[in-house]
Structures are given as C-alpha cells and as structure tokens.
C-alpha cells in the first residue's frame, strides 16, 4: 500500500503527456470520420429521395447496418482494410453514416408535401426544392442524426484502439490491463467530456442555422423514436 503514492505520481506524469496527445488523436479520429459521414450521408439521403425504390433500399440497408455490433465492424477492418489510423477512420465513417442517412431521409421526406408542391409551383428545380426548402425545414432531424452519430463516433474511437488507432483508448486499455482504475478513468472521462461538449456545440450550431421563426422553444424535451430509429433525438 505504501508504494501507491509513488506509482500514482509516476503514472500521472507519464499519462499527462500522453493524455494530450491521445485526446488530439481521439478528436481527429472521431470528427474526421464524422465529417466524412456527413459529407457522404446527407447527399446520399437526398439521392434516395429521388425514387421510392431507392428510399426503401436505403431504409433497409441503414436499418440492418445499425444492428451490427460495433466490435464486429471494428474487427472486420482487419482482414478488409488492415490496422492503423485510416482503417479506424473508415470504421467510424461506416458506423456514423447510417444514423445520419436515416435521420436526414426521415426529415426531408416528411416535409409537408404541400410545401414541396408550392416550391415546385413557383419554379424551383428539384435540387432547389431540396436545398432551399426540404433541408432547411429538416434541420432538426438532420442534427438529431449528427448528434447521435457524434456519440457513436466517440465510442468507436475508443474501441478502435484494438486496431491500432491510438487515441484515448490506449490509456483505457492500459488501465484495464493493469486493472488500475484511475488510469481507466483518465482515459475515458475526456472522451465523455468531448462528447458532451460536441453535443452542446452542435446544438448551438443548429440554433444558429435555423431561421428564427422555426426555432423550437424548448429543445431539451426528448422526442420519442417513433420511426423506429435509434437516432431520432
């Protein structure tokens, strides 16, 4: 027991330098993956609006895809893409893509048909109705998807330590291996903090982007996941 304080300090110093590095890697991992997913996902959702069949296909694929356990996805990278940072980003893209596509699609497809009609009526092209009418009106649904994916991204970024991504997972894993609780916490708490901060930032961003008349009075009321999506928040 007497050794404890010395070990603590030693670990602390060592971990602190690694901690900063790890945090940076974690953020890069999670949010480059998320950014790519947003860049692919939203257009993909828009495209699936084009026809009923593509809508059904996208819906089915995202539904099935979200049921696949994250650890399995991470593991699949090894034979398929190898190990390291990039394969880890790939996993994050794949796992965050699905909620974004699903929520965006749910949002843009449920815009009041009369509004879409009116838009077409005043001469907007199909693309314009989407970008100028549907997307702005579905901002909340889209951001719900992004926020949910942000949480997933942070989670996956920890798990990808197994395939050599680096990041906070390294510290967590080390703590688990030694069964040293403080180290575990030093690894995981920053990840949690980042998730919460990101959520807050995304909410602020959403409010900024939403035209004033459409802003909800109380965005903290939880919404039921009535569409069967895990991501309708």
């Amino acid at each position, binding site marked *: 027991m007497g050794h404890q304080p010395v070990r603590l300090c030693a670990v602390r110093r060592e971990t602190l330098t690694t901690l900063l590095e790890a945090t940076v890697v974690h953020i890069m991992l999670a949010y480059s993956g998320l950014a790519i997913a947003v860049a692919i996902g939203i257009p993909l959702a828009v495209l699936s609006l084009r026809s009923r069949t593509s809508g059904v296909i996208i819906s089915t694929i995202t*539904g*099935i895809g*979200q*049921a*696949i*356990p*994250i*650890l*399995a996805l*991470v*593991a*699949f990278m*090894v*034979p398929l893409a190898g190990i390291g940072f990039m394969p880890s980003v790939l996993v994050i893209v794949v796992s965050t893509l699905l909620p974004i596509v699903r929520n965006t699609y749910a949002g843009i497809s449920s815009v009041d048909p009369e509004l879409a009609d009116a838009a077409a009526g005043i001469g907007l092209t199909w693309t314009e109705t989407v970008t100028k009418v549907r997307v702005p009106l579905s901002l909340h649904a889209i951001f719900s998807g992004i926020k949910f994916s942000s*949480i*997933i991204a*942070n*989670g*996956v970024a*920890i*798990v990808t330590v*197994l*395939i050599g991504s680096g990041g906070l997972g390294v510290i*967590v894993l080390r703590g*688990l291996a030694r*069964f040293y*609780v403080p180290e*575990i*916490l030093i*690894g*995981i708490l920053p*990840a*949690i903090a980042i*998730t*919460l901060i990101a*959520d807050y930032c995304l909410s602020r961003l959403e409010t900024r982007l939403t035209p004033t008349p459409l802003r909800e009075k109380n965005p903290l009321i*939880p919404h*039921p*996941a*009535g*569409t*069967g999506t*895990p991501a309708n*928040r």
Partner: protein
Amino acid sequence: MDTLALIAETWQTYHLTLRTVQHLEMFALSFLITVVAGIALGILFFSSINIRVVGLSTLTVIEMIPDIALLILLIPLVGIGFPPTVSAAVLYSLLPVARNTTAGLRGVSPDLIETATAVGLNKRDTLYHIRIPLALPLITAGVRIAVIFCMGIVTLGGIIGAGGLGAPLQTGITTGNDLLILVTGCWVTFLAVGMDGIAWAISRFVSVRFGGRP
C-alpha cells in the same frame, strides 16, 4: 469443403459454442430486465409529471455518453466482466423503452380516453385496457432499439472479460487471425441482425393490430 472444415475447426478451437451461449445469456438477461423495468418506468413516468421530468432527464444524460464509456465507468463500481456488461446494457437501453412507453401512453387520443371514462372505466382499467394496448406500437419501437443496444454492449463486454462473442473477436484482432474474425464477426452479425429482424416483425405486427395501420 475445405473452408467448412476450417470454419468448424476455428469454431471448436475458440469455443464459439460456449461463447455464443454466454453471449445469448447476457443478452437475454439484460434485454428482459430492460423491457420489464423500462415499461414499468414508462408507466410510472406517465402517472407523475414530476417523476417523469426527473427520470427522463437522468436517463437522457446516460444516453449522452458513448455506450463503451458507460461500460467502462461501471467497472470501478461493479467490477469487470459480467456485472458491468449487463448493467450497462440495461441502463443504456432503458431510455428508449421508458421514453417510448411514456410517449405512447400520453399519445392516446383524449377523445378515446373520455369515451372510456364515459362508458364506466376507472383509471386502472383505462390504463390496462385502452392506453397500454394503444401504446404498444411505440413501445415495441422502443424495444426494438433496446435489442440493438443490448446486442452491441454485450458484444463489447468481451473486451472487459465478460466472455461472449466479443472475446473471440478481440482475440482474432490481437492475433491477426482473419478467419476467426470473419467467422465470429459474421456469426455475431447474423445473430444481431436476426434479433433485430424478429423485433422488426413483431413491431410491424403490433403496428397493424394496435395502431390501425392497414
């Protein structure tokens, strides 16, 4: 034939039958607790607005952290292996079930509730015979989400010593055993998607039977 033999061998060597049993045991336990507790909480939240606000806020906070984080946070509290895995699965999956149950109960048309009262049903009868049946579509939607969460967290449990199919997955990664990864990966994916499929089918059935969607 060669491949099949290899697969069989991998299966045997890494005790995948045992792992499957462990995996399904953990899943079944956490899922059952989640459904029972989730619906009970949903009914509780429905009957009292104060408890609802506090309860839903607490559960929402839990949902705001990644599931792996919750899993790991529970380790100092309940140890490693089975306990944190099942606890994390339950805690994480409670929100969709409870929130959907409450929303479903509250969402029943007030006209129908008034008719029920007018016809002579008291609060308890109205709850059991009118509100709950009509809330079932939303409740099953929430339960379907719980299936996905539970499966995912139980799989992750393999990393922290809970056994289940997550363990051979991790082994496969660390030893670079592609075959093990593919066999276990496909198998656990099959199980997870299969469970989700069953949940989806039940959800569709309930929607039609109780939700009136022809």
